[in-house]
């Protein structure tokens, strides 16, 4: 379980994050929703130790250490390998540095995404870069996967492929946190929603409970909350 406890972050006088708290459980998909600039990406970076913050973040009841990076991975909205590397070189790099690298799964995902080893990262389209990022992240035997806007700016076919992976490989027993500004067609894949606005949590709810108890879809709740 990832516990985010009252984290705050200022940039100059602007409050990027204001007392944000939530938990993300293993085996569940938690979605941070909010418009761009509301602090979603910053939250993920804070969890990953890529940006300083005030407050506490615990992963399986422990603070983040260097070994945590074998347990938790972040798939940002940008390539994480050198542009001049080929995909093959990127995979070799990953297997060199991570003991949790799973080469069989990597090859499986390569095939599924139809990526070729010889391709250079700088030559990949946006959709393929996203798929490569996903492949590199998911080929690690981690407990938690954090994804920043996995579907934004990507052609529809790639979106479908990525959503497919979500439903099959990805979740299994892992804890997934994704961010998005449009919930769109992936509503039914999400277990928990956290609505953010101006750096604070407006509402946190479980999607199936919301459907069962109030007959509301995620979009309905968003409409309610953001318009008040």
């Amino acid at each position, binding site marked *: 379980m990832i516990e985010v406890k009252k984290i705050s972050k200022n940039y100059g006088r602007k409050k990027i994050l204001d007392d944000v708290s939530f938990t993300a459980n293993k085996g569940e998909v938690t979605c941070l929703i909010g418009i761009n600039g509301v602090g979603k990406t910053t939250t993920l*970076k804070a969890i*990953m*130790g*890529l*940006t*300083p913050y005030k407050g506490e973040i615990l992963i399986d009841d422990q603070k983040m250490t*260097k*070994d*945590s*990076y*074998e347990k938790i*991975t*972040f798939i*940002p909205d*940008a*390539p*994480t*390998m*050198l*542009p001049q590397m080929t995909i093959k070189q990127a995979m070799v*790099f990953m297997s*060199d*540095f*991570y*003991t949790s690298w799973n080469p069989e799964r990597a090859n499986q995902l390569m095939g599924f995404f139809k990526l070729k080893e010889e391709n250079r990262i*700088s030559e990949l389209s946006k959709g393929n870069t996203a798929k490569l990022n996903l492949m590199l992240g998911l080929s690690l035997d981690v407990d938690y996967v954090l994804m920043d806007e996995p579907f934004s700016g990507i052609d529809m076919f790639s979106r479908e492929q990525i959503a497919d992976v979500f439903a099959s490989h990805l979740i299994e027993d892992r804890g997934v946190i994704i961010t998005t500004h449009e919930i769109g067609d992936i509503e039914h894949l999400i277990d928990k929603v956290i609505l953010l606005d101006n750096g604070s949590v407006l509402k946190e709810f479980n999607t199936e409970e919301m459907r069962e108890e109030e007959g509301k879809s995620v979009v309905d709740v968003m409409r309610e909350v953001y318009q008040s």
Partner: protein
Amino acid sequence: MMRYIKLVNFEINRFSKIYLSLLLITLVSQFAGVFIVTKSLLNDARDIMKEERLSEAAYITNYGGIDFNHIANSLLFVGPIALSAVALIFYIFLIWYRDWFGKNTFIYRLLMLPTSRLSIYLSKATSIFLMVLGLIAFQIIILPMENALFNSNVPEVLLSEMSISTITIANPILSLIIPSTFTQFLISYGIGLMIMSILFTAIMFERSFRIKGIIMGLLYCGIAAVLFLAPVLMEIGNFYFYPNELFGLMLAIGIILTGLSVWLGAWLLKNRVTV
């Protein structure tokens, strides 16, 4: 430990194209220098001998023999050394900044490796240090070859042969980069390491606090410089030290500054740097 070594290997590989180019340029330029300058010197000598109707022996008495110093001081020889020095100084900054900017966001991956931030810091420092040593070693290897080539191209009567150590000591640049004693080596490269670690830490300040960080970085460099030079500055204020004391003081301050910089830089990389 293994990951640290892998990182060093990785960093060196990344720079290898440029590094090999530097070595190649040095090789070609310096050897070309030997040929070109030798030819020019011989032509000049022959011109003078003709004009002043001097025999070769007389020429030597009046003007001295043709020696390698001329080569060592030429642009073709010194140029590539300066170029390499500038390139590596640039790379002290670039080795960090290249991972943050442009299409390259490799810093994400670097900071998400299951290795301590200190290892990451040290791997970059080590890489640059090793590459500097490599350049020096390369120069040390080709110098005797250049000297031999020079010696074989100049007629014996006009030649004033020099040994490698003489060549090195006589040339200001070579004497700087090729130390003649082990102590000298420790001092030169120790100071180099200290300066690099201070610069690295200044970079960490900038990456942590952006514009405020640049100021903090500059301040840090300034304070470090003042601290290191304090004993010398005190001498200007008429407070004198024995040479041994001066050396010991500066050595101690140097080591402390280097250690402090490495610790501070790694701490900033772990706790304050933002991607």
